[in-house]
């Protein structure tokens, strides 16, 4: 299940003519970076809710898949990729809002309970997706604007992947700006430090955290539809994606968006290079990194201990 998914990004998307070691290296690097930005989009929402609110949402992988299916349904019926993107983000955001409002809100501070509950929700969501859309993998259509490849010398790189890198960077800048420069970001950071104090300053922290959760879920849906043309979409992919998300967030560090992008780059590059150069160990290179980072620096490379 996960093996097929993880193999996605290097599956002959890049066409390398004669090429020697150098071009293989460049291709692998580019692949790794574009994969890293898919991971970043995937993990950003999780990192936000986990790092900012201390809420662990293990249904995040299932929300990503839901986003992919919502988006693809719209793309196939309306024919517009952008409408699909909007519907995926809004639809999954609303599902996330429901999850927060009905369940997670009542489990504040009970981490094992949150984890088990969201795992249960993830199972249920994945099975509903299977029920509604069937077990077969769907491939997202690349929007017409980004069909084709960029050629540099004898190397070819799909435009869509460059587009994903661009979107990833844009999301990074927006989140960074929100975190450091805006009032909302200041409230969120204040709430991270001292929730009671923030409340007593007259700030409706409950509303802020609900909004943050909605935004995090919407990011999952957004990532789902954007990733669909590269990774495809099938109902059971949520588990593998969830593990990748956890690895990215933990390696990079919780609480800051810079940490998430660093984690995504490390996991994306290690995974891609591992597959290209030591395929026998490819299934667990990123796990080894994950465990080593957890043991040496549990709070991640950049970041602060959330709890």
């Amino acid at each position, binding site marked *: 299940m996960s*093996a097929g998914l993880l193999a996605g990004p290097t599956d002959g998307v890049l066409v390398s003519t004669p090429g020697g070691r150098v071009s293989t290296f460049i291709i692998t690097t580019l692949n790794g970076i574009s994969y890293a930005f898919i991971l970043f989009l995937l993990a950003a929402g999780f990192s936000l809710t986990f790092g900012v609110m*201390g809420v*662990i949402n293990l249904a995040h992988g299932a929300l990503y898949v839901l986003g992919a299916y919502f988006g693809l349904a719209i793309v196939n019926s309306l024919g517009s990729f952008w409408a699909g993107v909007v519907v995926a983000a809004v639809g999954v955001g609303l599902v996330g809002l429901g999850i927060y409002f009905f*369940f997670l809100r*009542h*489990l504040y501070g009970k*981490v*094992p*309970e949150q*984890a*088990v*509950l969201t*795992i*249960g*929700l*993830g*199972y*249920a*969501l*994945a*099975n*509903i997706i*299977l*029920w509604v859309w069937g077990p077969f993998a769907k491939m997202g259509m690349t929007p017409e604007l980004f069909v084709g490849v960029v050629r540099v010398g004898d190397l070819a790189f799909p435009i869509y992947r460059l587009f994903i890198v661009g979107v990833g960077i844009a999301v990074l800048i927006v989140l960074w700006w929100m975190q450091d420069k805006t009032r909302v970001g200041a409230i969120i950071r204040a709430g991270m430090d001292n929730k009671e104090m923030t409340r007593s300053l007259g700030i409706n922290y409950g509303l802020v955290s609900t909004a943050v959760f909605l935004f995090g879920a919407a990011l999952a849906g957004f990532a789902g539809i954007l990733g669909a043309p590269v990774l495809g979409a099938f109902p059971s992919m949520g*588990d593998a994606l969830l*593990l990748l998300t*956890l*690895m990215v967030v*933990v390696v990079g560090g919780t609480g800051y968006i810079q940490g998430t992008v660093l984690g995504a780059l490390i996991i994306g590059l290690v995974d891609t290079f591992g597959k290209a150069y030591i395929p*026998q*160990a490819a*299934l*667990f290179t990123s*796990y*080894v990194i*994950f*465990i080593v980072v*957890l*043991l040496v620096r*549990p709070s991640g490379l950049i970041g602060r201990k*959330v*709890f």
Partner: protein
Amino acid sequence: MATQVKPGVFTGKLFARRAVATAPAERSARAFLPTILPVIVIGVLILLLPTFVPSYIQSLVTKMMIFALFGVSMNILWGFAGIPTFGHAAFFGFGGYCAGILIVHGGVGNFWINLVLAFLLTGLLAAGLGIPAFRVYGVGASDNPIYFLLVTLAFGELLSRVAISARSLTGGSTGLAGIPYPQGVLPGLHINSHSFYFLTFVIVVVCLFLIYRLVNSHYGYALRGIHDNERRMQALGYNTWLYKYTSYIVAGAFGGVAGVLFAYFGGVMVPGNMGMAMTDIVFLIVILGSASIYLGPIVGAIVVVGVEYLASLYVPDRWPLIMGAIIVFVIMVIPQGIGVLLLTGWRRLVRHGAS
């Protein structure tokens, strides 16, 4: 009485010793009606069951017993020491793979040798993984166990990846097949699916008894004390790290025994048995059945395995949805678990009967 974890009661050495020392005869007489009698009745019922029910029910009950042991072994960690782990299936699967590899590749046919070796090897694995895992586990209830959860989750997934990769030994992602029913259990005794039921019963009962003695020993009271207030236990001079670490090993080793039985039961081990999916099932078993009661996970195992069986009969495709719905229902509505409800109901009944 003694089977329930009461916050704040067993927090010191003195209390633990006194609890064990107070008039054992009187204690056991008082405990007979509410606790020991139902256990004996259930045991006898399980032993008599095969004469009345068809063989598929018998195999269902075998599975329930195996998962009951699995749940109780995890509950040493969660219910008693207060350590939530997401990687307990790693030991279950590892135990099963140990037995399977010994039989299929090692040519070791004898059941007892397999069982003991798997028990020891799983304990060794837990001892190896426990050292790094407890590095990220904080001290005291105020510390969040999230990093410990993530590390143990990663261990389980890592091991299942290893099982996928080491194809020559483990059969890869299709699993290790061809594990026969146990051989050499007793001289002249041939084990088939019918007698495997009784063999499982004996092994599970012995393991449950050992775990029961453990969690009600001085050691077990110390674990409960750590659950309630680890800082205070440290102040009393306990090496709490050692207690938590050894409880991880013991829980892992008994989880391995459940895995061995499961390998014989199904005849096949797949990498998924070590990963997140299996951990979720045992987590559900413990939560549903009550983590605070020793026998709770047994109730959980009966319900979960039973519902899974019914789902596989009527709506095989919807089992994950049903399981998810049960998890959500239990966490939101009865977070204390069914076991607590049953126990309070039973106690009320006994009290009314006595007065």
